[in-house]
């Protein structure tokens, strides 16, 4: 294990990125990084070197993030009434057919990921999700928690979790389309 005196300098940036990409809140990310280092310090006897030290730290941080989400969702319960619940009725006609279907995303995924602007727009779109949708979506897609585990964290039904993940994906897909692809595709098509 590296000398604790060097931890913050060596692993601070990594943990901060890890936290920020999940929390999207600088202050909360800094706080959880600080807590993670302290928790790691007290638990350092438990580090057996089976995984890399970075992975071990990230594991501690991951638990802190899930805890943070759990607490947040108690303050703002998952089942509470949202002022605006997206139904996507405007996207489909009365028979359930697309009114305006998804347009083609012209870039290949690899081309996409190479562009800094794409990641900015993804971050922007994620920040537009309501807190509860963002928390659930993050645990599902970044922490790769199963919906069973997600239901436990937020104390919701499986059906409820699928509906919320559907909403998050629909909103994000549309947001990416509007802010990134439409600018490009309308020129080309």
């Amino acid at each position: 294990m590296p000398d604790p005196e060097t931890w913050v300098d060596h692993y601070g940036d990594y943990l901060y990125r890890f936290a920020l990409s999940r929390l999207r809140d600088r202050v909360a990310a800094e706080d959880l990084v600080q807590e993670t280092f302290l928790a790691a310090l007290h638990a350092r006897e438990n580090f057996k070197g089976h995984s890399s030290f970075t992975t071990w730290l990230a594991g501690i941080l991951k638990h802190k993030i899930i805890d943070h989400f759990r607490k947040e969702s108690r303050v703002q319960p998952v089942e509470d009434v949202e002022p605006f619940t997206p139904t996507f009725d405007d996207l489909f006609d009365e028979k359930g057919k697309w009114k305006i279907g998804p347009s083609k995303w012209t870039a290949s995924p690899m081309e996409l990921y190479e562009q800094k602007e794409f990641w900015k727009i993804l971050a922007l779109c994620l920040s537009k999700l309501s807190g509860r949708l963002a928390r659930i979506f993050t645990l599902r897609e970044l922490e790769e928690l199963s919906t069973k585990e997600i239901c436990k964290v937020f104390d919701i039904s499986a059906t409820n979790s699928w509906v919320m993940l559907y909403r998050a994906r629909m909103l994000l897909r549309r947001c990416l389309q509007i802010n990134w692809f439409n600018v490009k595709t309308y020129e080309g098509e």
Partner: protein
Amino acid sequence: MHHWMYSCKEVTQMVSESLDHKLPLLQRIGIRVHLLMCKFCSRYRKQLLILREAMRLQEKYIEDTTLPTEARERIKRSFIYSLNKSQ
């Protein structure tokens, strides 16, 4: 569109659900059939998969983000304080 087939709206919901748990066989077949015929829904499905992949890759691509200096110093101070106390 025949009444026994899924609508696009239903397919978008089921495609999303299929990313979270395994759907019953009949539903999977119904989705398949719909996707073969529907350009928009198959685009939608591809785009959800890109979204999923992008979420998992984003850490690699935001590497220029660093812990702000002020926060780093603060975290270091409190950490070194605890370290000295624990020794």
